[in-house]
């Protein structure tokens, strides 16, 4: 091998020119694998292009290295604001998710016990006929990993086409409580701050989330400030010690479910010590309390009533209920009482997957509003999202059973009328009754039709409910016994959901298609297709449009707009219609761009203006509202703040222009503590908490097929306190049986793991499809958000015959 081979300048330039020419040709062909912000082919023949990472809600940008039609390398994108060239271990290996050995490559139909391969035409036809036979009993279950055009296409098909509101997404299981929290307090969804707050805060409080593992790039953004000599105080309020705790100055261990009490305790002290921000509260806030029955906007109360309601929440009471020492509560209240220190609160599933999720979200916002820690860089209550586009697709496009695009509500006649006009469909097309939310939808699907199970056909895209729903036996597996139910699943790999599917459709993944995601800080970011999908895999968006077209052919009137034309129409540069439902023609135009521009019109109502597609394509994402000023498109870093948010009136300072009380005020809430629906007792003496780990993303269907990640964390385990293990004579690594009232599971015990639960508490991650912990979890939902509580139920541990786990857990 010639080690000193000379690569001369001519050769290098030739390679670079070839790459540019290829990309230009592709751009003309509409596949548009353009080098927007990318680099020409390097010495290894790899050409690089930008894309947002496929995984979590942080929304890091990566540079994807492609060679010979394959993704071969990944690098952090240094031009991206979010991550500035850094990634986490999942992000570094995200390119490898495309190449698992058992990638789905052809449509499959279940005949008898087996799945046999069929043609796409037959697959779409089968599904369309099912839907056409009984459109009102059809439900569409989507995902926070849907791209914005995919979600929008499904939304339009269901709400504007079929007049059917049974469309919901898996973000119901993770972000719904954050949504109701934001709506209750600010009248509009999504964080007002952004990741810039992390660079300016003096104190960051983690409310029940393990950011070191779950949002690692954001977490290291905080702790690396220390390496630059800055002082930052980190506080971990949690039910168990995690890797996050190691880096925090304060660890407040609370009993499960008692975060509401802690927040109320802080508010109580702020009022008692008179350290709340009187001016901020007088100028910008109003008070609310719950009604009976509970409702999203409650009832207005006065400051005095609020003070009275908080009276019982003395530090001593808080200590009794939550287990956090009273002086730590006082410490928190003192912190919030200091105006000159900037405090950011971050939370995720600990607060959202909670039967009092809406309440605790409201209370944490209220603590920030009451103490005036809002509206300056570093002062922000921010809910982080878990999925790459839970914000961009589910929350903003409104792919939930009660929403319309742009924050509009199905139940609001004026909103329906406006959407009918924008979609150009006949008045009355959109149904006014709210559809089934996720848990309800699956309950109905798993109930016999003659016993009220009014969903008979389900289309699942880009998600794995067979592993992620709570109480799996009842909400999913029951389908086995119901012959007349039809489950169609679009996915990239066989999953726990495809196990019971009647129709399996192979889908394109990530950079095999164009896409747009929206991350936790309101940043909408776009990417172009870079490689071809394998076998016969096709885009999810195409599947939805093809289904709509087949229904149109079968004569369903809903597929026509007011002028009798097909609901999904795409024009080329000469304004001629392109039949994109024919896969060969799908990439003749940029379907993503046209759907996105169609959807953009809806975003003005709640001032969530999105930038034009081409502006997004040239950037590393932009934070809405993006408005044009002086010919340039300007993003918004901090909402509701004058000079940052273009919609705040001059001289207003801070203006909550979507206030639910219509007076530009945010709402400070009082919510009482309510005990959890299931707590440990004699028979089931442990708390069982479920969650995630760094190496695997959600149900692990992608990450467990990446060798590095699978070897780093091969399977699930149960974390247990060493004293409990000793008491039960369980050794580290021994297989034990965990049981709840709903099921039982065998797992290796880990007593010195990366998470250290307190005595009487267990933790199990849910990424392992061979260990379905959701067979054991509780199906109890928050009354307003309908989000289930995966974090608390009662469990028992049993030592079995002394089996030892030969491998390290």
């Amino acid at each position, binding site marked *: 091998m010639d080690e000193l081979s000379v690569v001369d300048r001519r050769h290098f330039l030739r390679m670079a020119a070839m790459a540019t020419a290829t990309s230009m040709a592709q751009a003309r062909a509409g596949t548009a694998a353009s080098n927007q912000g990318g*680099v020409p082919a390097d010495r290894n023949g790899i050409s690089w292009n930008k894309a947002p990472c496929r995984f979590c809600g942080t929304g890091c940008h990566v540079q994807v290295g492609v060679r010979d039609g394959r993704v*071969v390398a990944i690098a952090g994108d240094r031009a991206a604001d979010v991550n500035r060239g850094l990634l986490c271990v999942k992000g570094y290996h995200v390119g490898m998710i495309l190449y698992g050995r058992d990638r789905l490559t052809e449509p499959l139909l279940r005949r008898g016990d087996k799945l046999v391969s069929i043609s796409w035409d037959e697959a779409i036809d089968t599904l369309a006929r099912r839907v056409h036979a009984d459109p009102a009993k059809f439900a569409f279950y989507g995902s926070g990993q849907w791209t914005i055009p995919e979600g929008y296409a499904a939304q339009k098909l269901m709400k504007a086409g079929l007049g059917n509101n049974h469309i919901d997404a898996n973000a119901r299981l993770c972000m719904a409580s954050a949504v109701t929290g934001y709506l209750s307090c600010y009248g509009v969804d999504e964080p007002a701050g952004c990741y810039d707050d992390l660079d300016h805060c003096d104190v960051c409080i983690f409310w029940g989330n393990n950011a*070191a593992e779950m949002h690692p790039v954001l977490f290291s953004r905080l702790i690396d400030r*220390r390496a630059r000599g800055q002082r930052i105080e980190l506080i971990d309020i949690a039910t168990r010690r995690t890797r996050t705790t190691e880096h925090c100055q304060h660890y407040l261990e609370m009993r499960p479910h008692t975060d509401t009490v802690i927040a109320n305790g802080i508010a109580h002290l702020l009022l008692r010590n008179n350290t709340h921000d009187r001016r901020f509260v007088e100028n910008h806030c109003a008070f609310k309390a719950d009604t009976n029955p509970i409702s999203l906007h409650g009832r207005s109360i006065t400051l005095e009533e609020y003070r009275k309601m908080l009276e019982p929440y003395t530090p001593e009471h808080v200590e009794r209920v939550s287990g956090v020492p009273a002086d730590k509560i006082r410490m928190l209240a003192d912190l919030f009482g200091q105006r000159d220190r900037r405090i950011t609160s971050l939370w995720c599933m600990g607060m959202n997957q909670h039967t009092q999720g809406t309440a605790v979200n409201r209370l944490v916002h209220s603590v920030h509003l009451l103490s005036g820690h809002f509206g300056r860089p570093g002062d922000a209550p921010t809910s982080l999202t878990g999925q790459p586009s839970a914000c961009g697709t589910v929350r903003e496009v409104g792919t939930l059973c009660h929403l319309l695009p742009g924050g509009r509500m199905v139940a609001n006649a004026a909103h329906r009328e406006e959407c009918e006009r924008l979609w150009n469909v006949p008045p009355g097309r959109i149904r006014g009754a709210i559809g089934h939310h996720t848990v309800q939808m699956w309950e109905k699907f798993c109930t016999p039709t003659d016993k009220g199970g009014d969903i008979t056909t389900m289309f699942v895209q880009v998600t794995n409910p067979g592993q992620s729903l709570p109480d799996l036996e009842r909400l999913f597996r029951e389908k086995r016994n119901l012959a007349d139910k039809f489950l169609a699943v679009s996915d990239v790999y066989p999953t726990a959901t495809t196990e019971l599917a009647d129709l399996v459709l192979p889908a394109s993944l990530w950079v095999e298609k164009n896409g747009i995601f929206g991350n936790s800080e309101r940043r909408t970011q776009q990417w172009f297709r870079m490689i071809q999908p394998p076998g016969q895999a096709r885009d999810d968006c195409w599947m939805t449009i093809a289904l709509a077209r087949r229904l149109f052919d079968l004569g369903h009137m809903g597929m026509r707009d007011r002028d009798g034309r097909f609901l999904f129409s795409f024009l080329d540069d000469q304004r001629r219609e392109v039949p994109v439902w024919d896969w060969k023609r799908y990439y003749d135009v940029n379907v993503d761009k046209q759907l996105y521009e169609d959807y953009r019109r809806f975003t003005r109502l709640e001032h969530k203006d999105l930038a034009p597609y081409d502006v997004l394509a040239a950037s590393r994402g932009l934070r809405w509202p993006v408005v044009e000023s002086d010919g340039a498109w300007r993003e918004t870093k901090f909402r509701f703040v004058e000079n940052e948010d273009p919609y705040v009136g001059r001289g207003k300072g801070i203006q909550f222009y979507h206030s639910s009380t219509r007076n530009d005020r945010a709402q400070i809430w009082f919510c009482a503590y309510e005990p959890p629906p299931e707590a440990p007792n004699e028979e089931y003496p442990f708390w069982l908490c479920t969650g995630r780990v760094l190496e695997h993303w959600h149900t692990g269907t992608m990450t467990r097929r990446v060798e590095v990640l699978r070897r780093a*964390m091969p399977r699930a385990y149960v974390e247990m306190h060493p004293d409990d293990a000793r008491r039960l004579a369980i050794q580290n690594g021994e297989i034990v049986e965990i049981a709840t009232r709903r099921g039982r599971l065998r797992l290796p015990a880990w007593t010195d793991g990366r998470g250290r639960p307190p005595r009487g508490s267990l933790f199990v991650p849910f990424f392992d499809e061979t260990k379905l912990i959701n067979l054991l979890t509780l199906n109890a939902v928050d009354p307003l958000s309908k989000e289930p509580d995966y974090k608390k139920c009662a469990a028992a541990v049993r030592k079995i015959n002394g089996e030892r786990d030969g491998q390290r857990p």
Partner: protein
Amino acid sequence: MCSSRAKNQWGAGWSASMIRPVARLGVLKRPGVLSARGMWVLVTVVLTISATGYFVGLRESRKTSADARLLPGLSVKKEEDTDGSTLPAAKYSELSRIKLGPNRDWSVPLDKLVQPESAPPPKAPPDAVQRDNARTSRNERRAFEGAPPLIPHPTLQQGVASCLACHEKGMVVGKKIAAKMSHPAYLNCTQCHVEAGPESLTDFAMSKSGSDRAFDSAPPALPHPVWMRENCLSCHGPKGLAGLRTTHPERTSCLQCHAPVAPQDAPPWVASVSKEKP
């Protein structure tokens, strides 16, 4: 001196037989009174006896303590034994913490371990075999060129102090190299580096062999982007793999001669400049 008072005290006690022979010596001027010579003799005797007594006394006390050991019943207040041959007994409450055994005095922090003498820098660039070995051992730990290396040894699940103990400054222990971090100190180590076994990974996108030289003796261009590898010496310095070591570690301004040609290192205005007509 033999004052009259003393003489009176003892005079009666002394037998006459003592005085007569002493008087014959000439130390007494007359019975009971010392002459000058006598005085000198007396002083010499007293001093001699004192000195002798002092030195004998010193010997005596050592002898006494040895006796005490042989006679355990003897309650003698013993001083600290400083020759190290016996261990002081520890309090029971501290017994579990006290280090006993042959390496009880070992409290050397890891970074003060005596490092092996690193071989002097190679006189010529490494040969093909060495480079291949270096590349193989690097590739074993990386999913692709540019991926964060996997951790080939068990680690503590929590905390980063144990990572920094070896990787903050780099360390060589026998044949094992713990490379100094090639990137700035990011403190959430396990965010990017995870433990995985030593089996080799499927080849994903590894770098080509060699590096670009414009002509035979030209300094090779940097074959990889500089990002995350800002500290050149962590891989190419004295604690690097044999196949990667530079012949000139004393020159620390590496980018002065070795050009970063990876497209990722191009300044942001390169693309727009190259489009301009000259």
